[in-house]
Structures are given as structure tokens and as C-alpha cells.
């Protein structure tokens, strides 16, 4: 049993989107679909020439936040959305009735409808691919050339992610909603 989370040193992101490609390849995600499972948000430079704020430009990799208190799980009428033994928020397509309540309820816009199964899908930290094969990294983490992502067990004090989170400041997205997201953006 673990409690998986991910720390993102997002200021190192160069927007190469290799993570998106790796995710699509590893998890058989539909091609030509943006924001499916993971994506990179782009905040362009603010200001007008010549007063441009170069510091304002940032790339922001994002995905399901795997909340400890996930609104999508709370609202699911058939428990198709559930926490697995590693605290990963997952969807059982056999139980999903496509009411899309979870899409409405997710504050992070992390869910979408997979046209092949006509059920709702989202990032599952490669739970049924790499993690199921016994690997300890996600596809997006393994492929990242600038080592933005650190994936691991938050309950293990010796894991890399626990070490990093104990030493560096971080922020979480919309934590004021009480969702307890397990994605940590390193400052």
C-alpha cells in the first residue's frame, strides 16, 4: 500500500510536451485530443512592448490532482470513481453510466469522455500500465527531459517526493476547496 502523489518542479518545464506524447503512447490515449489525461498550460508573457515581463511567462503541466477528498468521487452515483489501494483516483469503465456529474464536479477540468468506451476517463498515474507492471515511475515522469516530475509514495518518508516536499516550498491548486490535491507545484 502506498499513497502516490506527484511533485512538479514546473519552472523547469520547457513545454516540449513529451509527457503528453508518452502518456498517449503508454495508456493508449486518443491522438489529436488536447487535454486528455495530461496537458501543459501556457501562460504567455504579460505586458506590451517594450515593457514585457519575461518572468511572467510560465509553463504549467497539469492533470488530475488525485485529491484525497475528490469531489468527482463523492458525486459518482455508482461508485465508478474510486480510490485504489494506493490512493489513486480511478474510474471503472464497467460501472460508469456517463451521467457526467463528475466532469461538472471536478474543479480542475481533469475529466473527459473517452469516445471509444463512452465513459469518463482521466489520469490514473499509469496504474493499469506501468504501476501494474511493477514499475515505480509514470510515463510522463520517465520521459521528461528536464526532470519536472517526481512521482512517489507520500507516506514513505524516504521517498524522493517526501524528501523534496520536506525541503522545498510548494503550492497546490485550489486547495481552499478542501479537495486535498496530491499534486504539489514546487516554488
Amino acid at each position, binding site marked *: 500500500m502506498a499513497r502516490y502523489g506527484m511533485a512538479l518542479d514546473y519552472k523547469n518545464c520547457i513545454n516540449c510536451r513529451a509527457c503528453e506524447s508518452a502518456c498517449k503512447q503508454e495508456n493508449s490515449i486518443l491522438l489529436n485530443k488536447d*487535454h486528455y489525461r495530461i496537458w501543459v*498550460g*501556457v*501562460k*504567455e508573457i504579460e505586458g506590451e512592448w517594450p515593457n514585457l515581463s519575461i518572468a511572467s511567462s*510560465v509553463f*504549467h503541466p*497539469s492533470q488530475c490532482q488525485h485529491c484525497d477528498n475528490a*469531489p468527482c468521487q*463523492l*458525486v*459518482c*452515483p*455508482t*461508485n*465508478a470513481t474510486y480510490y485504489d489501494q494506493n490512493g489513486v483516483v480511478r474510474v471503472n469503465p464497467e*460501472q*460508469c*453510466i*456517463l*451521467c*457526467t*456529474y463528475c*466532469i*461538472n*464536479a*471536478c*474543479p*480542475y*477540468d481533469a*475529466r*473527459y*469522455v473517452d469516445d471509444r468506451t*463512452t*465513459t469518463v476517463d482521466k489520469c490514473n498515474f499509469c496504474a493499469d500500465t506501468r504501476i501494474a507492471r511493477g514499475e515505480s515511475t509514470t510515463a510522463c515522469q520517465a520521459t521528461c527531459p528536464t526532470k519536472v516530475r517526481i512521482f512517489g509514495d507520500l507516506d514513505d518518508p524516504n521517498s524522493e517526493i517526501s524528501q523534496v516536499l520536506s525541503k522545498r516550498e510548494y503550492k497546490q*491548486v*485550489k486547495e481552499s*476547496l*478542501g*479537495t486535498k490535491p496530491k499534486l504539489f507545484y514546487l516554488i
Partner: protein
Amino acid sequence: MNEFSIKNLITFQKTPLNLLVAVITVLLLGAFVGGAVYFFLHGHHAFNVTRQHPWGLLISMYVFFVVSSTGLCIISSIGHVFGIKEFQQIGKRAIAGAIITLLSGFAVIALEVGHPVRMLIYNVLTPGLTSAIWWMGTLYGIYLVFIMFEFFFLTVKVNHKWSKIFGIGGLLAGLAAHSNLGAVFGFLISRPSANGVFYPVYFILSAMITGCYLIYLIYGFKYRNNYPSHVIPMLKKLNKILGMLLGVLIFFEAWKIITALYGDMPERAETIFHVIQSPTFIFGEVLLGMLIPFFIILFSNAEAIKPMVYASLTGMVGIFFMRYDLVHDTLIYPMDMLKRSEYQLPPTFVEYFPSATEFAIGFGGIGITLFLFYVAEKLFNLDDNGEH
């Protein structure tokens, strides 16, 4: 129960109004069937719903129908459950309407939910007890059973003791189900404009108003706006109840808007400010749904009956816009925009307009209601038999 035959079913008085309603019913039923066929061929691609706006007209129409059902049940309970004499005459007709509108709502939602059969199975096998949708659906199922038994004991095997017991059960289950439907929206922490206590309470209030409008329309059509003496006192009392309910609704809405705008709270204030400028809110919800009926009641000192039938027609159009706006306004603020500190995205509200298939299925549901009500009028004696 009356004798049922196809000949009896297609025999009716060929007045212009009857013929108009018959043509409208057939056209709407045809639209529903056509929309359903197109949906079965193309799935959710037949709808204009998107990831940003996952719910659309069909959810609105489902809410519209179940609001009508709960409203009719509540208003009928005034006489049937609480024993107010003048209202006892509406019992059978209102409960028939409550069953029929609920079934129409179920027909519409069955084509909105992606896997309705799977829903029936896993709602039982793996119930999501923290989900307002699960409670809403389950309670509506219980409610349907109660009001069907209530109707059975009112019309088929007349037994007032049992009809009252099931009437009370139906009323309680209906109130619980309907407030849970409000909670489906009120529980959304991701949508600040909807999140909170308002919708579960507002749903009950607007259901009662819808029930009053529908009683007016049903009686207006039945008596061609020319009422016998025993109906007039009931409709005048209904006027007073409706006037009070509309006053409370206007009060609620005003304070909802003021509290949403006050302090300019991020996401919520911007959404509500956008909403109150939209024509569907100003002309649909406020003018048609509230002000026209309210002012007729106010200026006639609650004596106007015939104008209220027409006002109930505008009122129901207004109720439709309330249901449409309820869904649309909840989803209008783009999720991406909530993350605009991280993303460079155009700060525009999400746009949505229903597809032809959505219109066909959604409004086609009204055809189901009209048709089933016609069948019920033929099949059962829905008039008061004076035994209470």
C-alpha cells in the same frame, strides 16, 4: 376505470382547440421518436454538450418535468393530505399529472444518461451514497411507487385511508427527492454560483409555483375557461397561494443576486452579473415566469381567474427558462478560466445552444406528457367523486 379501446382513444370532440392540441401532441411525439432514433445512431455526438458544458437542454427538461411532478403532488396534497376541502377535487387529476410528468422526465433522462441500463444495475449493486444524483434517483423511484399506489386507491380501488397514507408517503418522498435534485447543483464546490443552500430550497418553492401554474392550465383547458361554481373558490384560493409563493420567490431571487454580487467574490459575482443581463433571465425568468402572473394576482386582488390561465402559460414558459438557466448558468464560467493564473486563455463565458436532436427529445417529452394525460382522461374518471 373506463372501458379502453382504440376506437375510444381516437374519438374526441373535434373543436379547433382540441384539434390544435392533438396536432401539437402528434408532432411532439414524432419529434421525440425522431430525436431518439438519431441519438441511438450517433450517441452523444448528436448533442451540443461539450467537456466544458457537459449538461444541456435534456437535463433542463428532465428538471422541468420532475419539478412539474413534485409541484402537482405538493399542490394536490393541500386537499388530499391536509384536508382543505376546496382542493380535494384536484387530487386525482393532479396525481395523474404527477405520475405522467415524472414518466416524461424519466423518458428524457434515459436518453441523456450514456448507459441507462447500467445505471439501473449499478445504482443497486454499488450505490454511491455520497452522491446527490443517487439519492435523487432512488427517492424519485420510491416517490413514483407511492404516487402510483395513491392514484390506484383514488381511482381504481377507492380507499381513502390508503390513498392518504400513500399520499403522505409520496409527498415526503417527493420533497426529499426534489430537494436532492437541488443539491445535485448545490453540492458543486467547483461552481461557486451554484454551490450552497439556495437550490435545494428554491427547487421546492419553484415546484409549488409550477404545480399552481399546471393546475390552472389543466382546469383552464378542461373547462375552456368557463368554470362551474364549485371550481371557482378553489382557483381563487390557488391565486392567493400562488401570489404568496411568487412573492417569496422574487424575494429569494433578489437576495440571491444581491449576496452574489456583494463584495465581488471571484467567479461567483462575475457569473451572476453576466446571468442577470441575459435575455433568458430578464424576459424568460423574471417577466414571464414571475412578474406577469404576480402583477395579475396583485392588481386583481387575487380575484382574476381567466387571465391567470393565460398568465400560467407565460408562467410555464418562464419556468422552462428557469430550468434552462439553472443548468446553463451553473456551467457558464469556464473551468480553464478558473486557472487563469496558469493559463493564457480568452476570458469568455462558455457558450451553448442545444442541437436539433436535443430540442426534439427535450420538447418531445411534452408530447409524451400530453399523450399520456389524454389517455389517462379516457381511461380513468379524474373528476372528483365527492367522497372524502
